[in-house]
């Protein structure tokens, strides 16, 4: 079973994403900030990280750069979630180490399709 970590400061979004992912036979874990996610990754690196692009304390770019420097940090596939429909924003995320993006709000179908593209579903 693949493990997906959902990093988002919104509890509602984390619950919704968890439910969809569990339906898709993923094991899930949740983190409400970049720091908490990095800490959790030190103990157990997930296969996929669903990363919100708007987090209060640590930016998603800072999170991505720190993650990719960590031991085994190159391993997880990072899908960053954004409401910004902006090519500059997407390029920044790719440059920092994101693998894919998904635009919010997403539903089961779009998340499943994105995970299929990256070979995870």
């Amino acid at each position, binding site marked *: 079973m693949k493990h997906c970590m959902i990093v988002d400061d919104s509890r509602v979004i984390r619950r919704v994403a968890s439910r969809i992912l569990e339906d898709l036979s993923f094991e899930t874990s949740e983190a409400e900030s970049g720091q908490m996610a990095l800490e959790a990754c030190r103990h157990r690196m997930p296969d996929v990280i669903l990363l919100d692009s708007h987090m209060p304390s640590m930016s998603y770019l800072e999170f991505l750069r720190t993650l990719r420097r960590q031991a085994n940090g190159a391993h997880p596939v990072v899908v960053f979630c954004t409401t910004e*429909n902006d*090519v500059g924003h*997407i390029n920044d995320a790719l440059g920092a180490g994101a693998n894919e993006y*998904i*635009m919010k709000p997403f539903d089961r179908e*779009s998340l499943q*399709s994105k995970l*299929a593209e*990256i070979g995870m579903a």
Partner: protein
Amino acid sequence: MNPADIALLVELLKRRTGIALNPAKTHLIESRLTPVARQFGFRKADALLRDLLRHGREAMWRAATEALTTNDTWFFRDRAPFEQFRDAVLPVLALRRAATRKLRIWCCAVSTGQEVYSLAMLLQETPLLAEGWDIELIATDLNSQSIARAREGLYTSYEVQRGLGIRRLITYFNQEGDKWRIAGRLGRMIQFRTFNLLDDAGWVGTVDAVFCRNVLIYFEEPVKARVLDRLAGTLAEDGYLITGNAEMPDKVVPFFEALPGRRGLYAVTRPAFMLVSGTY
């Protein structure tokens, strides 16, 4: 809506397009006809339907037909047919057409264009264009509004993220406000045209491959055979047909031979010169 009216609508639609709607799907028919009803000054779909069946005005028929036959689509839908085309068909065609360096591919029901643009992207990612190959894509659909959208090549964020990876998005699209427009180099590969698969396809000329996906399932057997005949008639004698994965479950398909181990991929089995078009 009156079941007898729906049954008549379904029958007349089948005569016009070959497409056999399920008359039990009243809700679908009603929801698709409601915007057309408003367009023609009716409050509800059943009033439109009565008028349509009584007077049969062509403009109304055209609008109703387009509303009832629009199909959902997305980029690289089902993935496997595209990968199969790239890995199994294209290398063979590249060898066979090495002398002319020319390929023509027909996507015969492209809806709003995602399928043909996916194919154009895939072709851009092969060395063929850089080696000077002349590749022409012909994109048709019954629905003129869908073809107009396909030709425009402007998609919402929701549409581009359905099936399209991030790298392809930033490589092949330009941002326009909150939408994404397909790059001109892809659009220039494609000729768009509204076309009913029941009509004579002679204008298409000879093509090396036909993508006919998620269409044949809507046809009853005699119509399907007629369409397959037409498609075979446009294919070069060593051409290929690509259908949806589960669209033709039978091993024996008129005019085509299923390629072993390849779902939805067929080789044409009779030479194009033997075909007589317009025999039905």
